[in-house]
């Protein structure tokens, strides 16, 4: 192509693009890409985040719901009353809510959903959310009374999870392939391996959303993700898998880049029961041997917030404890020598597939080598990781992002894979569960963060960033990810 023809070609393209931009205001459909395809569409019986990304607040709604800023607001429950002792929640449901199949959503459905989730044969991946429920009673069609066995300050938060959405007994049988909920969008079509289409629900009880249809496309390869955005195949990429390409999108006026935070605490998980990690000095040495910023820059291209404990920095109760485990290889070497490992030791570092682990693992292994710790890198798939690391506890170190919101409670489970067993921490969590006063809770959460930081349970690396890429005209996208969700009801095209 000569320069001349290239120029004329480029100008034709530019004219075409501007014509297209002029029409953009009329656009009422959107194509959103995500990396993983949901296995099925029932958020109440699987852990896959991809399910929630498609269905949460779009197809299914719960009693309460998360907003983009992480706050919990009323969902299907219009309001609620909490008894003085904090054990009885009386929910008042919205009137006139129907499921997509036309049946009415009432207190019976709420009872059905909650009882199903906590039943003995329940397949709910977060069954612990419902463990405190003692009974669910239908008072009248629009009132439901939930009695807890003990006060639980997190209860309204728990009910906002995708695993706690309200489903109907009439449509439960085929929920995995034909989800029927109460949300603003109905399930349209699923071309497995390719895409899922949702359509606006004209009978929605709330405000009608702007978009008529939404298509979720599944593109797992990072290079393909870049190409799909660049070639205009998709309008939004929910969690862009190639952070190295983001500067290119940032420099391009056709696109916007949304950098937010997720609930993912990325940690160097340490097997606290496996020698030499049962020695707190060794764990402290690990913490000081790690240069967080180098990992964030090297593995995540600068995206991510350093953390010094297992807590999301955007949470109001967060305490910045990064100074507690500041990068100090000399101190690390000294601590190792004190613990009797002056010549270092050998251990394993299991790395699951995400790039934060694979890339971050290489850097961490190099940093540990500086203080004499030889970490053998073992790359594993998720299924293998779950089997050998998580269940088998057969590991020294591993890198993983804990993406569940508010999951500091896992440190109170001595059988959890990193095997931290502290009666102080367990007592603290018990106290927290019984506390409903917000200020008191905040203080207790601060104490909990400090305790696990000073016990150096794990190496705390960074809060995983949410990296979204979208066409410039798309508005209303969640910048942060308080839970896995792509809330279509808020999304529209600017004029």
């Amino acid at each position, binding site marked *: 192509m000569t320069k001349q023809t290239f120029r004329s070609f480029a100008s034709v393209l530019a004219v075409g693009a501007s014509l297209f931009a002029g029409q953009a205001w009329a656009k009422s459909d959107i194509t959103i890409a995500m990396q993983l395809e949901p*296995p099925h569409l029932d958020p109440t019986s699987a852990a896959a985040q991809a399910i929630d990304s498609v269905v949460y607040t779009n197809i299914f709604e719960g009693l309460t719901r998360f907003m983009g800023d992480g706050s919990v607001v009323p969902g299907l429950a219009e309001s609620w009353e909490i008894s003085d002792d904090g054990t009885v929640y009386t929910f008042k449901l919205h009137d006139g809510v129907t499921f997509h199949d036309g049946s009415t959503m009432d207190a019976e459905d709420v009872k059905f959903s909650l009882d199903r989730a906590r039943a003995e044969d329940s397949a709910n991946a977060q069954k612990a959310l419902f463990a405190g429920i003692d009974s669910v009673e239908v008072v009248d069609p629009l009132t439901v009374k939930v009695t807890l066995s003990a006060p639980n300050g997190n209860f309204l938060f728990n009910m906002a999870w995708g695993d706690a959405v309200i489903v109907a007994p009439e449509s439960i049988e085929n929920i995995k392939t034909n989800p029927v909920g109460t949300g603003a969008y109905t399930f349209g079509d699923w071309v497995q391996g390719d895409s899922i289409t949702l359509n606006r629900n004209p009978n929605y009880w709330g405000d009608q959303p702007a978009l008529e249809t939404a298509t979720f496309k599944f593109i797992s390869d990072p290079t393909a993700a870049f*190409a799909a955005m660049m070639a205009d195949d998709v309008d939004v990429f929910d969690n862009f898998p190639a952070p190295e390409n983001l500067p290119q999108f940032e420099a391009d006026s056709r696109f916007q880049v949304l950098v937010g935070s997720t609930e993912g605490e990325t940690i160097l998980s340490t097997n606290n029961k496996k020698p030499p990690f049962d020695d707190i000095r060794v764990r402290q040495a690990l913490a000081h041997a790690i240069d967080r910023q180098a990992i964030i820059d090297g593995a995540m291209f600068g995206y991510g917030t350093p953390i010094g404990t297992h807590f999301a920095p955007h949470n109001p109760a967060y305490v910045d404890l990064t100074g507690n485990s500041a990068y100090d290889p000399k101190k690390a070497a000294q601590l190792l020598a004190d613990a009797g490992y002056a010549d270092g030791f050998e251990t394993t570092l299991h790395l699951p597939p995400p790039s934060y682990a694979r890339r971050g693992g290489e850097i961490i292994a190099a940093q540990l080598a500086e203080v004499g710790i030889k970490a053998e890198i073992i790359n594993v798939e998720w299924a293998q990781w779950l089997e050998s690391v998580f269940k088998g506890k057969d590991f020294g170190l591993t890198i993983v992002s804990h993406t569940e919101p508010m999951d500091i409670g896992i440190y109170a489970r001595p059988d959890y894979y990193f095997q931290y067993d502290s009666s102080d921490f367990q007592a603290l969590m018990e106290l927290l569960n019984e506390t409903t006063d917000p200020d008191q809770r905040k203080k207790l959460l601060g104490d909990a963060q400090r305790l696990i930081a000073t016990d150096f349970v794990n190496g705390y690396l960074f809060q995983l960033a949410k990296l979204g890429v979208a066409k410039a005209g798309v508005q209303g996208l969640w910048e942060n990810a308080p839970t896995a969700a792509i809330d279509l009801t808020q999304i529209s095209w600017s004029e």
Partner: protein
Amino acid sequence: MLRYAFKRLISLMISLAVASVVIFAVIEVAPGDPASFMLGVNAQEDTLAALRAELGLDGSKLERYFNWVSGMLVGDFGTSYTYRTPVSQMIQDRLWVSLPLALYALTLSTLIAFPAGIYAAARRGKPGDLTVMGATQLGIAVPNFWFAMMLVLIFAINLRWFNAGGFAGWDQGFWTGLHSLTLPAVALALPQAAILARVMRSSLLDILGEDFMRTARAKGLSRRQALWRHGVRNALIPVLTIIGLQFSFLLAGSIIIEQVFYLPGLGRLVFQAISARDLIVVESVVMLLVFAVITVNFLVDLAYAAVDPRLRSRT
């Protein structure tokens, strides 16, 4: 002939039976529990047990093997652990992408390779031959996913003639479907065409040295006439064998291309199923591919025997 066919059929059955045992064993031995993969890190033990029972994972390995094989014999491939839809339906859906893609790529590679190979053979040692051979060397050396990325960069991102990936679906019309398979088909076809062109050339060169070619020239045919009438036809036999092999390869081996172009084909299904430990899907798809390859070989054997009577008496 019948005796020969019968013997081949018996060996086909044995191969399939052995394959089923090997596939089942290899896949079941790999660590990873489908139930815990699906329910994640917060799942409780009783929940996992309930799901395992629901998926039929609580039986013994032997029991599950026989359930799987006996199901397949009557065309029931079981139900996917993750998708909860019949595996046979999933395979059928994916074949509608993978099969046309393989055929498309094969057609393209043949269309490129035949003229290139014949041209190179006819101009043996001349610049034209060297150019074609150099190009084919490059085509073999460069991996097809690199071709794929270059094609996307040029034709999807810069020129906007094609989508960067995805499959429009045949219900959008034949040409729309074909259009969305074009870039992947070209990416798959180029390395195959390079191999095929070289085979075509060397096979043709062998034939050109045969006595009957000299006879053809002696009876007054021009070089070109002899090449087309007698050379190409006789050179086709090894070429067709390669084409047969390539078809099985294209059907089973397009995993990477399907990832790069995010096509909902068989390769991507296997890839997703392996990482999700959807064992039943992996086992069934691999078994199906083995079946396809063995059956193609069986048919090729029969075809050889039909063409060459010596083969029949030998066995």
